[in-house]
């Protein structure tokens, strides 16, 4: 299995999902060899054998690698095709790219390369090197299926398939359209498309993503299968103790403050609720490129005494934030899955989610609104604050619902997909 990160070294939801999945697979008798660009040594190895790509030597004299290397360097040149950049920026990028290509060659053919393990600016180079290492690992290990998570690892997956002829399963946790709206990076798009084309099976995290894969990438629907994400059972103690210093009810947005997450809709809905009921506080937790714009909007609406920004929250603070919240809102414009509402529900917080999120497909005991329908969003928030039976229903049924979404079950479906790929 090719991943990009593994707990505890995670920057997004991908690592958490991979961890949950591998643990679940173990219950179904599937052994996983997990490859990460850089292992730190303290990763949980209870369910997997972790392979550090930085330790893997590449057999540079094998012509197969040579041939493949030529292909990926070609893909890298393609990365210059980033839309909407000024000529100056473009030139800078090209220069940089050429340089990095040179740099890439030498360390790779020096047999070992230290991966940074981060989403760096020379990401494409790392992706390419990772692919080469993937091929080497494939040639030197015994396995039945190759599983690659997100586009970063698809070249590695393809390389491994080419070398060994074993079936390839690629896992779409997010598409380029989710990350960038319509202004997609065509190179990333191309890697995603190629990965899915080459794959024997494509796993999507929701039907929403499945539709994008079929319609925007033109992938054969027969091999695209949805396996909804699950959530790890909480390891927290029975009671989370926290101090709540405000009397008012608290409505929370928690996530990156980017276009994809729809923060502006949350603010507009907040304004509508506050007009009617001033005894509410709104919190926007997280950070992102739209943060300053959001702060300006809140100031302009003159609701800043009731609307608060926390900045980026980590670990315990996330739990504390949930514990303080009376309503959790996820107004995402496009969300392949969306794990945070499940975390909120697990903390007994009733949630409002956008219909444009994959997680909406598996939840009943939530309120679903269109992300753009701020009237409906405001109405849902108001109702959760004022009609008590609604909150009670969500607390009793919502927790049950989340507890049923276990990785073991999702992994069972993945194991079936492996079987079908091996047989085919």
């Amino acid at each position, binding site marked *: 299995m090719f991943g990009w990160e593994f707990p505890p070294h995670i920057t997004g939801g991908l690592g958490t999902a991979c961890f949950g999945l591998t643990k679940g697979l173990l219950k179904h008798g599937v052994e996983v060899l997990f490859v990460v660009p850089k292992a730190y040594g303290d990763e949980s190895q209870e369910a997997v054998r972790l392979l550090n790509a930085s330790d893997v030597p590449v057999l540079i004299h094998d012509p197969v690698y040579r041939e493949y290397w030529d292909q990926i360097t070609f893909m890298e040149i393609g990365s210059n095709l980033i839309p909407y950049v000024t000529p100056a920026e473009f030139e800078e990028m090209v220069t940089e790219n050429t340089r990095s290509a040179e740099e890439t060659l030498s360390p790779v053919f020096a047999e070992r390369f230290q991966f940074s393990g981060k989403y760096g600016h020379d990401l494409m180079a790392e992706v390419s090197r990772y692919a080469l290492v993937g091929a080497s690992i494939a040639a030197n290990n015994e396995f039945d299926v190759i599983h690659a998570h997100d586009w970063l690892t698809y070249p590695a997956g393809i390389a491994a398939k080419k070398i060994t002829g074993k079936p390839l399963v690629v896992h779409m946790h997010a598409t380029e359209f989710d990350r960038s709206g319509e202004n997609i990076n065509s190179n990333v798009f191309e890697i995603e498309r190629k990965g899915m084309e080459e794959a024997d099976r494509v796993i999507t995290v929701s039907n929403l993503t499945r539709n994008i894969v079929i319609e925007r990438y033109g992938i054969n629907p027969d091999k695209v299968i949805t396996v909804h994400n699950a959530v790890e059972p909480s390891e927290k103690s029975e009671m989370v103790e926290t101090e709540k210093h405000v009397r008012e009810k608290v409505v929370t947005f928690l996530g990156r403050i980017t276009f994809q997450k729809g923060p502006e809709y949350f603010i507009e809905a907040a304004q509508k609720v506050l007009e009617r009921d001033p005894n509410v506080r709104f919190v926007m937790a997280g950070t992102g490129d739209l943060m300053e714009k959001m702060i300006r909007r809140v100031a302009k609406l003159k609701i800043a005494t009731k609307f608060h920004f926390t900045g980026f929250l980590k670990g315990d603070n996330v739990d504390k934030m949930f514990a303080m919240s009376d309503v959790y809102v996820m107004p995402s414009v496009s969300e392949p899955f969306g794990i945070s509402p499940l975390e909120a529900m697990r*903390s007994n917080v009733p949630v409002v989610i956008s219909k444009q999120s994959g997680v909406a497909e598996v939840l009943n005991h939530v309120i679903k609104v269109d992300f753009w329908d701020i009237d409906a969003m405001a109405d849902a928030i108001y109702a959760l604050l004022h009609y008590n039976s609604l909150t009670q229903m969500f607390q009793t049924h919502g927790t049950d619902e989340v507890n049923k979404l276990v990785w073991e079950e999702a992994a069972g479906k993945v194991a079936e997909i492996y079987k079908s790929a091996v047989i085919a």
Partner: protein
Amino acid sequence: MKSLCLYFQIHQPFRLRTYRFFDIGSDHYYYDDYQNKHIVRRIANNCYLPANEVLLSLIKEFGAKFKVSFSISGTALEQFQKYSPDVIESFKKLAKTGNVEFLAETYSHSLAATLNPGEFKRQVEEHSQAVEKLFGYKTTAFRNTELIYSNDIAGMVQEMGFKTLLTEGAKQVLAWKSPNFLYCSAPHERLKLLLRNYQLSDDIAFRFSQRDWSEWPLTAEKYVGWLNAVDKKQEVVNLFMDYETFGEHQKADTGIFEFLHAFPAKVIKSGKWTFRTPTEVSNELQPVAGLNVPHAISWADEERDLTAWIGNDLQDEAFASLYSVAHILAQCDDKDLLRDWNYLQGSDHFYYMCTKWFSDGAVHHYFNPYGSPYEAFINYMNVLSDFLVRVNDYADENGIARKALVIRSKKAEVPPAREIKADKKSAPEKSGKTVLKSAPKPSVRLKKK
């Protein structure tokens, strides 16, 4: 000769418009006129008008041998008058033949029988008056909303002077007994009970066009064959169903109208059966046993109980809030308030809030204009909040006491949101910390490790 009793339920609710919380206090009109009009006209054309034609032609052909009965809710009658007067005219024609019985029920197809006896009686009276005014018909038999029935309801209905009541031939009540006899209420013996034969009724209402049904296609010959196979000693078969079965649930192209004409004609020609109205059946037959029904039954779902309308937290809060002002409206003469009081009691609003469907949503989704029970609840509560403000204002203006809630329910006793907040805070303050019940349990899996 055996009796065959045909009864059709007709009901249309006043559906609510999307009513946001910021409308509370500023906009007092709650109904989706466009949708209501559109739906009533559509069903009039698909079902009521063509089906009435078929029945009328059967009456012309067979005279006194063919009879039929209807219950039409008050809110349906109002909408016909408003949006489709031709439907009223068509029913008047049927009424004039003398072969049609109209049944009494609650005006707004409400659950008042279960929740507020005083309001129940008022609604039944209002409905009977409306039927008499429109069709010149004095009701003698009663059927409750969705055939909901219990011993208590029997008592109230008998007290109001009805001799006959229609309900479901529910298994939990009948056990080994057959629905094909006349029964009476055990504690209120003068009230005769006609019980729906759900097997034969649902063969038409639900299964008629189901291609994966082993008996599909259902022909008049086959159906009459089943009727003739009914045990010799049994006296009456009660076929009760939604009138919308004809042309709406089962579309015209399934052949349902041809069936509606062919099967009564065949039944009559066989010479073994005669069609009778509920009151005729009740006058003619002797009850074979008394039925004891302490827990309410209905004709809904597999459970045949009230769980589609009553029992989850949402429904309980909505009912408790609604009936908390019943005593004010009992003394009210404001036309607008009384209109809304009727419309807001419609059982449909509460049906939309049912959460038991999450496992098997098929039938339910067809009838539900909301995306989820939670949306239905939010919209209803917004409307109700505005209504309650108006009713309480009226009470203040007219010196009527705002009383504590009438319905006993633990939700009803919960104070409004802001006070709860204070409670939540005050209790744990002793320890200086607020303990929030964010208490996800560690999984079994992790415990093992």
